[in-house]
């Protein structure tokens, strides 16, 4: 199977090279047969990558311990669920998995548009094949996942051998979310290849109009959604497994996943400027280019460890390849831009500082500054080592200082943007639109103050959350009222109808609502407290309003590990709330390897987060570290809303038959239009 697997990958490489070279030939000659054959080579590349990936999966599931990759990342007792995770837990496997997910996107695009966009698709095919060639080069010649174990015998001949069992999967990765987090994040990273390919193709082909934006809108949203889920799952994993009580530590790997998300989010907003007003064309193209480059950079940072370890880059085999590929991509993008920049002329100018356009502009500015700040903070050690004799890193205070104001600024614009009209907003409409949201914002801040959330930044954040929340409610209410008046439906049904008629706009608002919830959760971080105590059985500790009693301890043998559990009772006043079981896991397969399992009692108000921190070497008693983290649950709830909003935005718009019927009744029509001029039937507005 290993020979078969590596052969399919080699064949995939050959097909990708054909799709690339033949594709360039097809662009020059325009020969229909060549166009068709290169497209089919592209499809074949993807199918072969699928087979190669399944071969590695088969080797893992069949416990083939003659394979170096299987030995390094699996063992016999590892459950089937985690054998799937073993596929991407190592360098070689994760790079193959990148190719695999990219192939899923590429084959979907090639098949979906096989009879459409004849002018653009040959360019897209060549660009996608180019990206695939890079990853297949790594899969075949640099980091092959199909390596057989062998000994050098006395006579200098290589003799293959088979190990009885493997080393097992890293315990930190044996957690359910680690099985779904990487595929999501990688689907985000790879997914941005599609808008990149279309943007570059449109530029190279000088493809007329904004059609590339319409074509890639859904792909961008899919990639963005996966990236968002991936980031949140990663944060939740860090929270639930690493046991330090937090969910975001500005670690280089975390930052790497945030970077393309920031530019991708900026892009999702700024395309509306291009669609509605024909502005920011150069900016949009470069945002897509940068997002793709940051995806590659993210993969590179995650895999090479260039930031965390002084010598990682020199030791890493893939480092120079990634840097080379990024430089090449940058050069190609730059040349394409310089040659075709007249095609990207803006059709309009900014009219007023208080307008929808300007809110988008400032939104993009903040996202961009955030991206630059995170990027420079992450790569600071690398830069200082290049330009100075010392290597300096920056930590959480740097990121927090700059990212908190930016986050609040973006949250503010989330509320303001939809309330401003395109081109210019009158003072009257400002007053009309802002009074209630500001009042609700003030009310939320007062409520937070009364509830004892007394921290300046958190109060500002909660004020803005209330403000944005009410702007969203108003948007739904106004639109729904128009429909309700015309159709006689209830307000709830009308709101549903409204959302289904313009899924992108109202899906966007649902995403904004999710972000409000996330910000409420983030505001809670200012009030985190923790207590650490060496405890005898029966002893208790106070944690805010809670009392934790260490009832007993036990040992629970499982198939792949043995768990040492502390049984902690949570009481509030005299009321017994629940039992928590924080544990330490000793895994088989790796010497002395341990895992922590945090136990969390989670409510909307706060999380009681209990860690069994180990045995105190002086007293031989268990150490319990307990954290009280307010409002954390809102972050995960917000994540669910973000996903639901994106799914709504991805749905096709429902035909507004009712409104057309309503338009025949002139008595209602103009009133409705006056109530909300932005409720129109035109597909694809924000």
């Amino acid at each position, binding site marked *: 199977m290993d020979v078969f697997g590596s052969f399919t990958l080699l064949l995939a490489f050959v097909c990708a090279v054909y799709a690339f070279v033949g594709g360039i030939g097809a662009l020059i000659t325009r020969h229909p047969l060549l166009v068709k054959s290169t497209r089919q080579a592209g499809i074949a590349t993807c199918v072969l990558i699928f087979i190669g990936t399944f071969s590695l999966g088969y080797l893992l599931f069949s416990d083939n311990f003659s394979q170096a990759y299987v030995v390094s990342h699996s063992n016999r007792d590892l459950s089937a669920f985690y054998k799937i995770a073993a596929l991407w837990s190592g360098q070689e496997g994760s790079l193959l998995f990148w190719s695999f997910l990219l192939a899923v996107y590429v084959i979907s695009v090639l098949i979906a548009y096989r009879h459409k966009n004849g002018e653009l698709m040959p360019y897209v095919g060549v660009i996608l094949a180019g990206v695939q060639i890079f990853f297949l080069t790594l899969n075949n010649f640099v980091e092959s996942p199909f390596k057989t174990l062998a000994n050098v015998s006395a006579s200098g001949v290589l003799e293959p051998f088979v190990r009885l069992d493997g080393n097992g999967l890293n315990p930190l990765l044996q957690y359910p979310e680690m099985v779904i987090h990487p595929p999501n994040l990688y689907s985000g990273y790879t997914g941005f290849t599609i808008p990149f390919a279309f943007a570059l193709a449109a530029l190279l082909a000088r493809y007329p109009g904004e059609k590339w934006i319409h074509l890639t809108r859904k792909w961008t949203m899919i990639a963005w959604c996966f990236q968002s889920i991936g980031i949140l799952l990663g944060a939740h994993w860090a929270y639930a497994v690493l046991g330090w009580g937090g969910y975001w530590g500005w670690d280089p790997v975390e930052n790497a996943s945030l970077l393309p998300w920031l530019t991708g989010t900026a892009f999702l907003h700024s395309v509306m400027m291009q669609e509605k007003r024909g502005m920011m064309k150069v900016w949009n193209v470069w945002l897509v280019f940068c997002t793709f480059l940051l995806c590659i950079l993210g993969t590179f940072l995650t895999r090479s460890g260039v930031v965390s370890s*002084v010598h990682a880059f020199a030791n890493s085999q893939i480092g120079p390849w990634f840097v080379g590929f990024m430089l090449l991509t940058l050069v190609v993008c730059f040349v394409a831009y310089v040659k075709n920049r007249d095609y990207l002329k803006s059709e309009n100018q900014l009219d007023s500082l208080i307008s929808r356009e300007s809110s988008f502009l400032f939104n993009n500015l903040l996202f961009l500054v955030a991206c630059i700040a995170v990027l420079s903070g992450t790569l600071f050690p690398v830069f200082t080592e290049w330009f100075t004799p*010392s290597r300096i890193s920056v930590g959480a205070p740097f990121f927090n200082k700059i990212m908190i104001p930016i986050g609040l600024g973006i949250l503010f614009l989330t509320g303001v943007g939809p309330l401003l009209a395109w081109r210019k907003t009158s003072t009257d409409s400002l007053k009309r639109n802002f009074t209630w949201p500001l009042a609700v914002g003030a009310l939320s801040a007062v409520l937070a103050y009364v509830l004892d959330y007394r921290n300046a930044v958190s109060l500002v954040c909660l004020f803005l959350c209330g403000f944005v929340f009410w702007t969203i409610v108003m948007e739904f209410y106004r639109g729904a009222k128009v429909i309700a008046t015309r159709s006689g439906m209830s307000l709830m049904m009308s709101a549903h109808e409204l959302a289904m008629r313009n899924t992108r706009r109202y899906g966007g608002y649902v995403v904004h609502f999710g972000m409000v919830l996330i910000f409420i959760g983030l505001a809670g971080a200012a009030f985190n407290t923790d207590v650490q105590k060496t405890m005898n059985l029966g002893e208790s500790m106070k944690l805010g309003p809670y009392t934790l009693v260490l009832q007993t301890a036990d040992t629970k043998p499982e198939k792949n590990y043995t768990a040492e559990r502390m049984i902690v009772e949570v009481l509030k006043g005299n009321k017994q709330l629940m039992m928590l079981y924080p544990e330490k896991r000793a895994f088989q397969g790796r010497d002395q390897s341990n895992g922590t399992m945090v136990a969390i009692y989670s409510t909307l108000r706060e999380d009681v987060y209990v860690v069994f921190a180990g045995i105190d070497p002086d007293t031989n008693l268990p150490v319990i570290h307990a954290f009280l983290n307010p409002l954390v649950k809102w972050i995960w709830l917000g994540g669910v809303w973000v996903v639901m909003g994106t799914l709504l935005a991805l749905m096709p718009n429902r035909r507004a038959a009712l409104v057309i019927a309503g338009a025949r009744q002139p008595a209602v029509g103009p009133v409705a239009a006056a109530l909300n001029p932005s409720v129109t039937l035109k597909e694809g507005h924000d």
Partner: protein
Amino acid sequence: MQNRAKFGVGIGVIVVSLGFLAWMGYGESKTYYHTIAEYQQLQGSARNHRMRLAGTVVTGSIHHSAGRTDFVLEEQGKTLPVSYIGSDPLPDTFVDKSQALVEGRPGSNGQFVAEHVQAKCASKYEAAPGGDKPATSSTTQQSSM
């Protein structure tokens, strides 16, 4: 004022104030990376910086005592005694022979006082195949191609 100028001023104010915050954050959190050999050569004010050092935990050197954990890091033949005084429990991956990253400042009597200790991170964890099989010291990998 022209629209362009207004936007220019707005953007300028935002960028400059964020830049100022970044500079403050940098001053608060900058940490120097050194190898153990470099650390031992440091003179004067350079010794007062907050710094981060990496090395391998010497087998048998981990000793716990009230409120602190002492251990020795080794890198390219140089060793450094470290006292960990942080309140967080040491990571599970922190054991003999693990790769550790310590952050803190030089102490008064020769040892390095660490406030944070990280042991090798999950996403970069790579174990050598055949690592627990001492008999095959000449173990190598062969591509099946």
